[in-house]
């Protein structure tokens, strides 16, 4: 990235840091409880008392955004981590071992991909208790397949590279080849995939919550805050939809840019765009 984009970099990092501070230390920034119902002040527009207004039950939108951000970010990151670990491991093993094992693993993958992920999520939900952890697990376990496929392809092509053989000649074992040469080479791919994974996870969480299968309704998340607000937006009560939506959009955008920067950081030395950003 060029120098003139420095402000963008600072902006993104600043936004993400602020988000972490505000959501992490939510009780210090708001006097309200996220679940506190205030029937005397239902659907209030933004004001000094209620910065982002109140919702249909009189709960403070700003407070719920802060507490909800905790859930959304946690779900996004944790689910992403799970899917990256499963995906990269599965793909790397499949590509590196090759042969019959590779073929079997890939057909299993094909089968899993062919099932719509929403069905898979609902299916998994049956076996798991209704909780935050369950949502994380479900999203993580249903979104690793594209990562596995990409990592496998890269491992497969890297396996034949001369430098991998050269490393075997100086004595590296298969495991060392995999962890020292093949996986680091896949890092740029994995980074980009995991970043889009975060946004995917945030959106999946929203979808699940909408179906009543996600985060239990008493706990706010950006996803379940957006639920059922269509009617209000049409009648001019914009704040209960716009603020959660804005935060989802901004966060996904910021994380995507972050991924771009990370990709540059992990790129081969000769392809780095000059100035080191991170």
């Amino acid at each position: 990235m060029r120098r003139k984009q420095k402000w963008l970099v600072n902006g993104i990092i600043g936004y993400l840091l602020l988000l972490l501070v505000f959501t992490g230390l939510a009780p210090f920034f708001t006097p309200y409880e996220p679940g506190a119902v205030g029937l005397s002040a239902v659907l209030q527009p933004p004001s000094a008392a209620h910065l982002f207004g109140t919702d249909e039950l009189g709960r403070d939108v700003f407070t719920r955004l802060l507490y909800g951000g905790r859930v959304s970010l946690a779900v996004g990151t944790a689910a992403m981590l799970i899917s990256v670990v499963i995906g990269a491991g599965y793909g790397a093993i499949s590509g590196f071992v090759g042969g019959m094992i590779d073929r079997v693993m890939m057909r299993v993958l094909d089968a899993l991909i062919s099932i719509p992920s929403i069905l898979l999520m609902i299916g998994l939900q049956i076996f798991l208790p209704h909780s935050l952890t369950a949502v994380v697990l479900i999203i993580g376990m249903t979104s690793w397949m594209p990562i596995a496929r990409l990592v496998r392809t890269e491992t497969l092509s890297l396996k034949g590279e001369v430098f991998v053989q050269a490393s075997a000649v100086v004595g590296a074992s298969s495991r060392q080849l995999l962890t020292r040469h093949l996986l680091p080479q896949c890092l740029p791919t994995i980074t980009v995939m995991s970043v889009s994974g975060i946004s995917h996870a945030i959106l999946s969480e929203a979808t699940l919550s909408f179906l009543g299968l996600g985060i239990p309704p008493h706990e706010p998340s950006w996803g379940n805050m957006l639920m059922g607000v269509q009617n209000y937006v049409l009648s001019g009560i914009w704040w209960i939809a716009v603020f959660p939506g804005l935060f989802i959009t901004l966060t996904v955008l910021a994380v995507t840019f972050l991924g771009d920067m990370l990709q540059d950081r992990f790129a081969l030395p000769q392809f780095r765009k000059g100035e080191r950003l991170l």
Partner: protein
Amino acid sequence: MNEQVLTVKHLSVQLETNQGKKQLLKDVSFNVPRGEIVAIIGESGSGKSMTAKAILDLLPRGFTPSSSSVYFLNKDVSAMDKRQKRLYRGTQIGFVFQDTYGTFDPMQTIGQHFHELFSAHMKISKQRAKEKTVQLLERVQLTEPERVYDSFPHELSGGMRQRVQLALALALNPVLLIADEPTTALDLRIQADILQLIKDWCKNTGGSVLFITHDLGVVAEIADSVVVMKEGAVVEVAPVDQLFDQPVHEHTKQLLHYYKELTETPKQTGLFDIEPLVTVNHAKKTYIKKKWFQKQMIKAVDDVSFCICKKEIVGLIGESGSGKSTLSRLLLQLENVEQGAIAWKGSLPFRKGIQWVHQDPLASFDPRWNVEKIVGEGLDYWKEKKENKHQQVKEVLQKVGLSENILSYYPHELSGGMRQRVALARALLLEPELLILDEPFASLDMSSQANILSLLKQINQTEKTAILFISHDIRAALALCHRILVMEKGRKIEEAGAKELSDSVNFYTRRLLSSMPVTHPGRRLQKQTTEGEREYAHQNG
């Protein structure tokens, strides 16, 4: 007869960068007379190719040549208008490059390339173009011109593509042929053929050639006069005999000295242990090549037996596709033998005792690692040697003649010769008993070759390392090895000491030997007659 086809007068090229102006060519002047072959010789980075590009007016943006310095048939090239330039580049000059793949459009057949060329400069029917093309392809001695005509570039071998490139360059009967390292990437035998073709063309049509190379052997073989370049400037211009006999400039003397090192077979073949280090017994390896529904068995290594003794340098010579590299991969245990056995007699573990330098060192380095990590990698895997790794890496770098400040460099920042040394350092760090070098000279210019050659000799003597030297370059093998194995199509066909090999009677070995360029221009005639005699003797005996 003394008409100048090309005159270069005080040619300078500047590059404008952020850091200011950089002088790439300084005051380059020389002539190419009609009917002569002029060679430009120099190390990599000496500005040879830049000169060719400046002559063709093909310099990339930012490079500014001095005006009015290139005259073609007494016309100033920089003063030509667009149409004239097209004519000049298209029909009056032909050029051949080193890269035989990049110069072709991969989506077009060879025939389409020729058709495009013809139709750009003349009115010609498709039928007529094909006839002409086939004729041209025949002239460069391609055996099946009709098949080549319909082939795509990737379906041809490197040598065939170079012939096609030559045919393309000569298609419109140019006055001048510019050849930029046309044979560097090719086998010696194909090189000999290509050089012969160029010589014949020059003799038969009276055309001139500007031949760019780093190899004095090629110069001795082909050139009438020589331009020696160093760091963007011409240091000496002389007729070829004079250059070899009475070099004036220090740099020329240096080049000749290197060349001598590379071509001289040492008299003392050296005493070595006869204790075998590794023995290969009837090794066999076949690959299966699938094409649609057919399976084709390719015998890469077919019943090969030999041994390498301790402290010995063995050369493994053969053309591309003769199974040399497969054999090295078998020795390295990167692949397993199908039949036969490879027995290791050195100290264990085997994996550590046998090390490898790949023909393309850059490809053999992890691109995200720096020199220190690359060289030191082996130590991570052998526990007993782990301590003071940094020190050991520094020592081994010193051994191969590299300074320690390249430790933090990345592979792409190194020059070809440095890469070769880094690869060598990595192999030597584990103190192997056998070092396998796969075409170590393939991508180096002559001076780096000579440097690496003496380094290898030195390593062999001081470290007592046995070396298996794999190459198509019989010249280098003769200069380095104690014993030489010759392979053809997966079989070992000859094994002899380096000195005895030059008197070999084997037909294939003879052919390899005769493809070596002459060591001195005066020998050109001599070589032709001896070759003729041998051919005659072969037919009658």
